[in-house]
């Protein structure tokens, strides 16, 4: 979060809401009614490190002007809680056959059955 | 007229005699030439061509059994399941059909109560459709065993089947009395020539 964004938030930021992860969402206080096509600027103040994938889907829609208000989180039964990109962390995805995921996998080509006495 | 498909087959002494006569026509090492007549002979004895027949003919003619089976399935003359004593094959090809083979079929169905591919309960009759049997001049016609019955109508067909049922003698060939494929009612061209030279005409 740059100084500029902090400054902008302080001077011209209107708090809109906060998601489950603690990221805070702002938009411009200024309304330019003279220009009907003008869209108020929207931005996010991340909790912790700035990382695009931290934004959940419902806020993503608001942030990109798809919706006027954030969507309802978990409105459908099949929706999973949002997870940021975990690449490079311990929570990263590893295939089933990987040692970190237990090392058991289905048979595949190249396998052989070893002789045991 | 009986037996299962896998039952072993053997020529009776009389038929074996005939089989030997057929094979004698061909030089040594060419026994294979006798496959067709021998299959026919076996069919005359058993009534149909069973697997046993195929294997016996293959053995006698020194031919691979698969080759004999190929031949036997190629020709419609060989039957691959037991048929009635009178296997009625009605030609329904175009010439016969135009001349009323539908009526002939209807007559048989009415008389016997069986459909094409069927067989009467007493195993006396079985009915089949045949493709052109080469007697188009005398259409419509049907074949029973080795005999042709030609120039049929609904009535003559019923009459024919009725007689066969009762075991009475039947008239073979044209049912309206013409000889061979000469025109109905006598020659229409070269009439003079025919009467003087006695070519064609009645026997």
């Amino acid at each position: 979060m740059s100084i500029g964004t902090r400054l902008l938030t302080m001077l011209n930021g209107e708090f809109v809401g906060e998601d489950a992860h603690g990221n805070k969402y702002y938009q411009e206080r200024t309304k330019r009614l003279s220009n009907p096509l003008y869209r108020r600027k929207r931005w996010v103040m991340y909790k912790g490190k700035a990382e695009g994938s931290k934004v959940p889907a419902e806020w993503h829609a608001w942030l990109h002007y798809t919706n006027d208000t954030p969507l309802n989180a978990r409105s459908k039964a099949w929706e999973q809680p949002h997870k940021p990109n975990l690449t490079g962390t311990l929570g990263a995805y590893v295939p089933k056959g990987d040692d970190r995921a237990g090392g058991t996998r289905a048979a595949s080509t190249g396998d052989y059955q070893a002789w045991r006495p | 007229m009986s037996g299962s498909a896998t039952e072993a087959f053997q020529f009776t002494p009389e038929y074996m005699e005939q089989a030997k006569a057929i094979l004698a026509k061909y030089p040594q090492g060419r026994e294979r030439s006798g496959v067709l007549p021998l299959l026919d002979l076996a069919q005359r004895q058993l009534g149909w061509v069973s697997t046993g027949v195929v294997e016996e003919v293959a053995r006698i003619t020194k031919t691979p059994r698969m080759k004999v089976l190929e031949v036997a399935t190629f020709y419609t003359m060989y039957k691959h399941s037991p048929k009635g004593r009178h296997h009625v094959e009605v030609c329904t090809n175009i010439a016969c059909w135009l001349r009323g083979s539908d009526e002939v079929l209807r007559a048989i169905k009415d008389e016997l109560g069986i459909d094409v591919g069927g067989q009467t309960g007493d195993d006396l009759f079985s009915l089949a459709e045949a493709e052109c049997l080469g007697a188009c001049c005398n259409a419509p016609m049907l074949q029973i065993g080795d005999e042709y019955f030609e120039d049929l109508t609904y009535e003559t067909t019923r009459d024919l089947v009725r007689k066969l049922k009762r075991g009475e003698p039947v008239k073979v060939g044209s049912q309206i009395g013409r000889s061979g494929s000469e025109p109905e009612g006598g020659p229409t061209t070269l009439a003079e020539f025919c009467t003087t030279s006695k070519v064609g005409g009645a026997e």
Partner: protein
Amino acid sequence: MPKLTIDGIEVEVPAGTTVLQAAEILGIEIPRFCYHERLSIAGNCRMCLVEVKPGPPKPAASCAMPVAEGMDVRTDSEMARKARKGVMEFLLINHPLDCPICDQGGECDLQDEAMTFGNDHSRYGEMKRSVTEKEMGPLVKTAMTRCIHCTRCVRFTTEVAGVPEMGMLGRGEHAEITTYLEQALDSELSGNVVDLCPVGALTSRPYAFTARPWELRKTESIDVLDALGTNVRIDVRSGQVLRILPRLNEAVNEEWLADKSRHAMDGLRQQRLDTPYVRKDGQLVPASWEEAFAAIRAKVAGLDGSRIAAIAGDQADCEAMTALKDLMGVLGSTNLDCRQDGAKLDPTVRAGYLFNSTVEGIESADALLLVGSDPRWEAPVLNARIRKRYLAGGFKAGRIGPAGRDLTYPVEELGVDPSVLIEIAEGRHPFAEVLKAAKTPMIILGMGALTRTDGAAILAAARKVADTTGMVTEGWNGFSVLHTAAARVGGLDLGFVPGSGGLDTRGIQAGCASGAVEVLYLLGADEIDTNALGKAFVIYQGSHGDAGAHRADVILPGLAYTEKEATYVNTEGRPQRTKVAGFGPGEAKEDWKIIRALSGALDKTLPLDSVHQVRARMAEINPVLGTMNAVTPAAWEAFGTEGPVDTAAFTTAIANYYMTCPISRASPTMAECTRVFINGNQERTGTDG
């Protein structure tokens, strides 16, 4: 020699050549489905239509039309193309469009030709005909709806395989290709119908739904499951051998491949030795290479050479045998043998253990005497060559050995025991006259005759037959030994036989039992009686956990023939080299490298640091092994020991064709074949090789 023009190019070809063959000479490819170079001409697919002038104004089937003087052939004219399009449209009337689920997809002739001659849509609204699947045994899977009735399979089984059990039943729309009463196709060459089938009607059952051709990495290699040295192509995906196909070699296998060689490859994934083992307290436990070598060192160090012995198995490669022979040399042992079945072959005269007539030479032989050999099982592809010779006419074959076995060509049964051979050698038997009258007679001497205790005398008698009936003349040597092991000729060429005072296989086994031999090195040798090795310390080096591994005290995991680049000499004496198609399992290493490393651990380091040095050493031992893919004719010298022969009947060398080596014994497909063909058939008995 008629001269004709094809597509404007003039060509002169021998009379009797067909238009299609003439076009092939010019490099013009005419599409075809039913025509095949090695089968008779059927002319029933009509795909090869061309325009021929002069002649009737209609296209002619080029595969069945002999060339004539002054012919003007057009293979790409409007008429020819239109005719082929018509043929393709007719073929596709009833051919299902199931390429995505068809195993032939990607290597299908019909698919390829449809790209050129197919329409973009069908003009037929009627249903396609469907045909029930036919049972053809454990190797051939059928989807007969796809059949286009080219009859290649029928012609192959009838002509080449000599098993006239396939045929076309019915006719017209109702024609169906099937085996007699849908019995399994009882031929050792049945896998070839899969290669021949231009569509997906006959596909390989073990390979079904396994891979697409473009996923496979193809390696050109050599087969070692029989002694013929069939040229093969090994198809591999992710290091796993998925299928083996024949490769064209006119001199060896033409383009056929035996079923065992083709389908035993699933044994390459079973029962593999992937780590060294050392026996501790009676139990084999996994060990590192160092531990295994240390265990051997502890036993071998200070041991007299005469108390060490080595036996090479049937699939040992020349490189490994070279290294092992040298290792035994530095250890001071002369007890080594590559004839694990105890065959009494004379290693001193090369002509005495080769198939001197060569495989191609069979075609110029005009009389054949089989002695204790069953080529149909010992080398099915070679047997097909003999059948080809028989079909050409003017060929007489006689057999001394177990009678009644159908070899797919007629043989005169001369007797079952060696006394008949002696009679022929002494000219007292009528068949001797047949051989003498023949211009190029040959004798095939099988392992069934040589593995007996009187093998040496039989070898001598066979040589006498060859001498007295004029089998060895200028440019022709009809004396042929048919081996059953791929390693045998290579081993004999390398002199992997007892040195002076050394023990042979029988001597080594007796020595182990009595305690005279303390250390036995088995290089993939599983066919000896491993239970009768007494208290000997057994080192087993090989690829599979078979009989040898069970008895072993130290196991060194080696590679199978698809995983190493190794030299094998086929029964004709033709050195050929396998290629690496996939990597071996776990810790397994190339065999000569294991022996080289062991020599280092024993402080007797062999000067074999690279494969080039090994090969140079090979060529040094026997210069013949320096030239690949060529047969070096051997000089005809005296061999064999004349002596009295036993009158016991000959036996066959192979009890079960489908299980003869560790690979085929481990193969589930071969087990299934054994169940269907061996145990289901009363004529052939025995369950194990």
